[in-house]
């Protein structure tokens, strides 16, 4: 059913490399995925896997002067974003594709009222006159469930709590009704009860406005509760992609399995087993992105690795319906 919906964002072979004094850092090394209208796609991975850099690359928010080199294709509803001029890109950011970040305090301008910041987006992209933009901003604040929105619009970011600031960020991002919203760890810095509110809000708005969401997170719980499909990234590469239920039921890639087994969790019946028992560890550490990785990036830490894994980089093969994974030894892996 999901594959019938139209593709709004298409990323093909995205590569973002940074030239530094110590070598080339391959932050994103050939990532491809599609986002369909109205769905939530999660990009999961640990720190340094390239998920944030992917998002920033899609939005073309990485400045040129940090020695960045980018290649690949990003198509937003048919428009190729990588070849646009900065001026053309500006007309698209905040308008047809938006992004919200982890730290709302530093992502909001501290010297402008929140209403002004929402209205700015409307003014620039939809050419609304000041009064109309302000009214629409108040409407957006109501839509993100901020109490007393007319008064709150005149508040400054420091007068709001963390959860409210994140709601304002969402309001700014959705003001012009974009097709895609990229959310980079939007709830990581928030308390768990506030996180639940924000995720709930995002779900509600998604259903109302039909926005597709790309949610970047390291929290598998968030993935399970919010996304329809998920991509697992490791060392700048995509290693697995599947619908979420399928991913948790039958994780194929050894890294995904390791991740799922290393978090304390309950069984499907809600019971806890293994209290104070051993959690499955993934030995070793993430490889440095400065050196070119030959073969599979996960091979040094993988208990199933064979010679081929160290020599040849595995491609993404479909092993089950709608489920791809990049691993040579999937057939050999013990069933979960």
């Amino acid at each position: 059913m999901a594959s019938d919906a139209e593709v709004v964002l298409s990323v093909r072979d995205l590569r973002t490399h940074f030239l530094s004094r110590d070598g080339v850092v391959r932050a994103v090394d050939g990532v491809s995925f599609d986002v369909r209208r109205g769905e939530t796609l999660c990009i999961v991975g640990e720190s340094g896997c390239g998920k944030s850099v992917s998002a920033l690359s899609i939005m073309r928010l990485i400045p040129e002067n940090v020695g960045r080199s980018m290649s690949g294709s990003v198509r937003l509803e048919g428009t190729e974003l990588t070849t646009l001029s900065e001026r053309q890109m500006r007309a698209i950011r905040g308008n047809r594709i938006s992004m919200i970040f982890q730290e709302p305090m530093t992502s909001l301008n501290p010297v402008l009222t929140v209403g002004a910041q929402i209205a700015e987006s409307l003014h620039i992209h939809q050419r609304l006159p000041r009064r109309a933009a302000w009214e629409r901003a108040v409407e957006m604040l109501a839509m993100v469930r901020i109490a007393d929105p007319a008064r709150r619009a005149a508040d400054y970011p420091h007068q709001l709590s963390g959860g409210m600031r994140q709601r304002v960020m969402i309001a700014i991002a959705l003001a012009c009704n974009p097709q895609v919203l990229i959310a980079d760890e939007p709830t990581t810095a928030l308390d768990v009860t506030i996180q639940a509110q924000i995720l709930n809000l995002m779900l509600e708005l998604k259903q109302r406005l039909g926005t597709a969401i790309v949610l970047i997170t390291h929290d598998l719980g968030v993935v399970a509760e919010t996304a329809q499909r998920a991509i697992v990234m490791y060392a700048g590469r995509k290693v697995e992609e599947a619908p979420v239920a399928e991913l948790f039921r039958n994780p194929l890639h050894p890294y995904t399995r390791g991740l799922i087994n290393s978090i304390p969790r309950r069984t499907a019946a809600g019971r806890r087993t293994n209290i104070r028992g051993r959690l499955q560890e993934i030995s070793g550490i993430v490889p440095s992105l400065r050196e070119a990785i030959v073969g599979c990036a996960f091979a040094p830490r993988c208990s199933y690795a064979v010679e081929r894994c160290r020599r040849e980089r595995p491609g993404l093969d479909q092993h089950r319906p709608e489920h791809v994974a990049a691993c040579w030894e999937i057939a050999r892996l013990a069933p979960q």
Partner: protein
Amino acid sequence: MSSVLAVPVPAGSRSFDWIRRNPTIVVGSAILGLFIAVALLAPWIAGDPLSFDPLNRLKRPSKEFWFGTDQFGRDVFSRVVYGTRISLIVGVSVAVIATVTGLLVGVLCGYYRRLDDIVMRIMDGLMAIPAILLAIALITLMKASLLIVIIAISIPEIPRVVRLVRSVVLSVRGLPYIEAAVASGTRSRIIMTRHILPSTVAPLVVQSTYVCASAILIEAGLSFLGAGTPPEIPSWGNVISLGRAFFQISPWIIFFPGLMLAIAVLAINLVGDGLRDSLDPRIARRM
């Protein structure tokens, strides 16, 4: 679409790499090194800076007198060379005194809050007095000598160093590894020396170069005003001061010491800037 080539770094070129990466330190140090060499070798490269030679008054720079002569026939080159000694002595002494005193006071202030309130008010007061005026006042009260000049210049420099050290101490003091040291039973004195002090070293080294440069300039200014080193000692400021009257007919008397002053201060600032750039991000990266 673009592609990227990885550039491998050959192992042997690491020292050249460092030179390439820190040009400011290298250039500044080279120039400073030259000055130090000149100061040390003064008796061998220069003649007598004090001997009068009325027959050769106000001679232009020539093969015999590289920087010309002044109104008393004294060789300006020799005076400038010996002046290098004075400037370097003053610069280094002031830097050392201000740094050591500032470090002591800054660490204690940063660590003990009650002491902090009192002492910082005193420091604020000291900073409010312009260095030159304070120096003039002190020198007028005591007999003029090089030592008095050094002390007089050091005093207004101390509050700035205290401020710097104190701010580093305050920021480090709240870090968990200090709490860890307390939890491990470490005594206060050792916490200050072992855990807090090392963080002050880098900014302090940078600051001391600026203090040195500033001291050299202030000394020159004081001497120029006649309130610095006694006139029988040939400091750059003194040479400029005495050459002031003949500026229009014999500009070389002012020009050469002024040029040396500018180059020396520039070199020291280059070293300071270079150190600052290379030390700070490394510390940030290490943490």
